[in-house]
């Protein structure tokens, strides 16, 4: 980490993954930028490169991004082999070029996982996460049927711990970092968030069974305790949540009765 002082410009050698579409082979493309400011964010550097490409009539490098303040979870690059780059608990959009030295060579690739197919260049399809949430990542409460909010007290430590897990931004860095491309940190974060709150208790077992089932169907791998997910997570989601999920899954599996489907449909 070398922070250059204000005003100085850096030279950066970029190798960027280009891929026209899902079915076509991709390759790394070299670009040299001579006027990178240390105050630029990593994505602003890509903006500068893209503007140059467009001005030359060439197609810009496609990458997902939106809020540029680390909360929407859109940005998704693997930078020098690390999901979201070198800094701890920092999304790519919050990574600044002052983290690099003049003359650095940087390789930029998309998140790679079977369940996240490449759409184009650095853009991948993470809709598997949405399908997992649709399978059970919610509390079934129709609008208007909620009780008065303070009628359900939540011990502060539980609320705080639930918030630690609810902070997940759904970026998928956990999957990209995992040697098995497992989504267990993402899934267990949602399961923990909801299970730690009394509001989430009634559906606790059904939820863990449905979400784990959906996760498996999407083709994510299993957890073999590398904890790369935790190291890559830009929001510092505690990896203990995976153990919580496994415990809940075990209990729920032992108690689940396939015939107990008398429940009303969940509208």
């Amino acid at each position, binding site marked *: 980490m070398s922070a250059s002082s204000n005003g100085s410009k850096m030279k950066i050698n970029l190798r960027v993954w280009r891929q026209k579409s899902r079915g076509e082979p991709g390759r790394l493309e070299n670009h040299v930028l001579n006027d990178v400011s240390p105050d630029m964010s990593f994505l602003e550097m890509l903006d500068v490169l893209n503007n140059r490409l467009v001005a030359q009539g060439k197609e810009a490098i496609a990458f997902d991004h939106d809020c540029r303040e680390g909360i929407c979870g859109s940005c998704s690059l693997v930078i020098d082999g690390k999901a979201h780059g070198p800094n701890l608990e920092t999304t790519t959009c919050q990574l600044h070029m002052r983290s690099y030295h003049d003359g650095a060579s940087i390789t930029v690739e998309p998140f790679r996982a079977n369940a996240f197919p490449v759409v184009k260049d650095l853009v991948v*399809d993470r809709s598997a996460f949405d399908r997992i949430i649709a399978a059970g990542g*919610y509390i079934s409460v129709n609008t*208007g049927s909620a009780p008065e909010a303070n009628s359900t007290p939540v011990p502060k430590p539980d609320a705080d711990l639930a*918030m630690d897990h609810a902070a997940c931004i759904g970026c998928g860095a956990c999957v990209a970092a995992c040697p098995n491309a497992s989504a267990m940190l993402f899934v267990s974060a949602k399961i923990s968030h909801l299970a730690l709150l009394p509001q989430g208790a009634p559906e606790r077992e059904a939820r863990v069974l449905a979400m784990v089932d959906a996760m498996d169907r999407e083709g994510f791998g299993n957890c073999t305790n590398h904890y790369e997910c935790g190291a890559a997570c830009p929001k510092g989601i505690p990896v203990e949540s995976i153990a919580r999920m496994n415990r809940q899954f075990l209990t729920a599996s032992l108690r689940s009765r396939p015939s107990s489907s008398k429940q009303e449909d969940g509208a």
Partner: protein
Amino acid sequence: MSTTTTQTLQGSSKLDSKCPGGPMAERWTRHRFDLKLINPANRRKFSVIVVGTGLAGSSAAATLAEMGYRVTALCIHDSPRRAHSIAAQGGINAAKNYPNDGDSVHRLFYDTVKGGDFRARESNVHRLAETSVRIIDQCAAQGVPFAREYGGLLANRSFGGAQVSRTFYARGQTGQQLLLGAYSALMRQVGAGRVKLLPRREMMELVMVDGIARGVIARNLVTGEYERHAADAVLLCTGGYGNVFYLSTNAKACNVTATWRAHRRGAYFANPCFTQIHPTCIPVSGDHQAKLTLMSESLRNDGRVWVPRSKGDRRSAAEIPDGERDYYLERKYPSFGNLVPRDVASRSAKEQTDQGKGVGETGMAVFLDFRDAIMREGESSIRAKYGNLFQMYERITGENPYRVPMRIFPAVHYTMGGLWVDYNLESTIPGLFVLGEANFSDHGANRLGASALMQGLADGYFVIPSTIAAHLAGRKLEGVSTEHPAFAAAEQDARARLDRILSIKGSRTAASIHRELGLIMWNEVGMARHRKGLESAIARVRELRAEFWNNVQVPGDSKDLNQVLEHAGRVADFLEFGELMALDALLREESCGGHFREEHQTPDGEARRDDENFCHAAAFEWRGEGVAPVRHAEPLTFEIVKPSTRSYK
């Protein structure tokens, strides 16, 4: 340029707000009783398209689906969880009065009408205040992890411009948690097959049949395909237009396209000049900058805003003794101090930098200092309250705000204007409803902190589910299929437009044109506006628009993911919209809320409102390209909160 003014027709037709009469506190209840009901079995016969899946869109789509309507939701991102509502930090207001500090529905109503500088509709605001309490119940039940007291009950804090503690929050990520709550409700309906969710879709055109909104043309952003979607009603929940300034706190995808396309089809655009400049953002650092980052104004609860007393003082903050600091908000506004509303705080910062007292490299910043709060409460207490914000600041600036004061400057943040809607949230196009930031009305000329999340969710969870019946049950809607010629025509319009952009093959990027537009808007239609500047802005925006259509360069084609083409299409709409915004600012000869005309100020530099001539919402009617719009006025009446000069002294 003065022709612009004279050419603009003053509309004579009356805009019917459909506000119910009777006692203010009973209006919403009475209105809901008067609205038609649709029995549960019949609801599945009606289909609704929801464009946009932020707080307003997700909450509306989920709730309408729960009720039994068939819903199609279009999402511009890869997932609804990415919508820009997610970036709201500070909190959400509700008149629960848990702290027992004198809050009530009436007080929230009163504060919002006054905070909006008497340019909001009283009936709407009262409904918003009433609804606020149920939003908290709903969100808590969904599992939104609001901050709690040690007894397990919900915590509150006071937030910019309020003297009571009515703001609920989830650390500095309230928008994220509320959005994830609405998203989970939406995904539950998607899982149940009641909502068809179409991600990576952009609405390109509104389709009207017999004068009624009956569908949209969308573009699949991955395949480039144009799609036709027909329905019985269309809801636009597509957010604000702050990115007309290029640099704003908005996410990069935020745009005016959906509302502007609807405007061109007949929906009136109201009060486009009412924009909110947020006082506490991280200052611009260079030309490369793609967006500005907000620092939650909750920071103003503990941080003190100051500049050096003398001009051009380049010493570091630590070297400037207290006696040589000007805590100008505390000096000018002793009763509200650092907590004055956003418009006042922003303008005051500009006043200081205009006088050459700005700090930092560029001189375009003021200090927000936590030294005293840290001495009083200890660093750990400050860290508990604002840890994630301090961390974000340090990441971006490379400075540690526990040691040196933050440097902040105002930035465009929210837009109070939007498509005109009546009390039912219906635009001037029957069957087209507009929710959340995309509409106008509830916030008047200035929005109070922690009120945007409240309004988005009020509209989606509680207002539209009732009021949509007025349209669905009240009008005889023939079945419409996507084979109708109106769909083919609208699709052709959408196609032709993007094809034309691709065919120009000029020498300028859409990004550089957008940046230039933003600079014009910021300089002339930003925090302070005057006649000459606005007239010049209109002329320059027109020239820039011509430059775009003659000289833009968009490589690639429209048959796959082409983010440069998407952006260019949005810039083209901003180039039309920017002119209307400047025109509205030019015609509104008064200062109110976020709209400050230099010609209309008191001797001590405060805004001078003109209730005699401008106590109305201005709603513009599109009349064609190169033709001046018609300006319609909806008079605003204040029965309860009598207009007074806002004073925060």
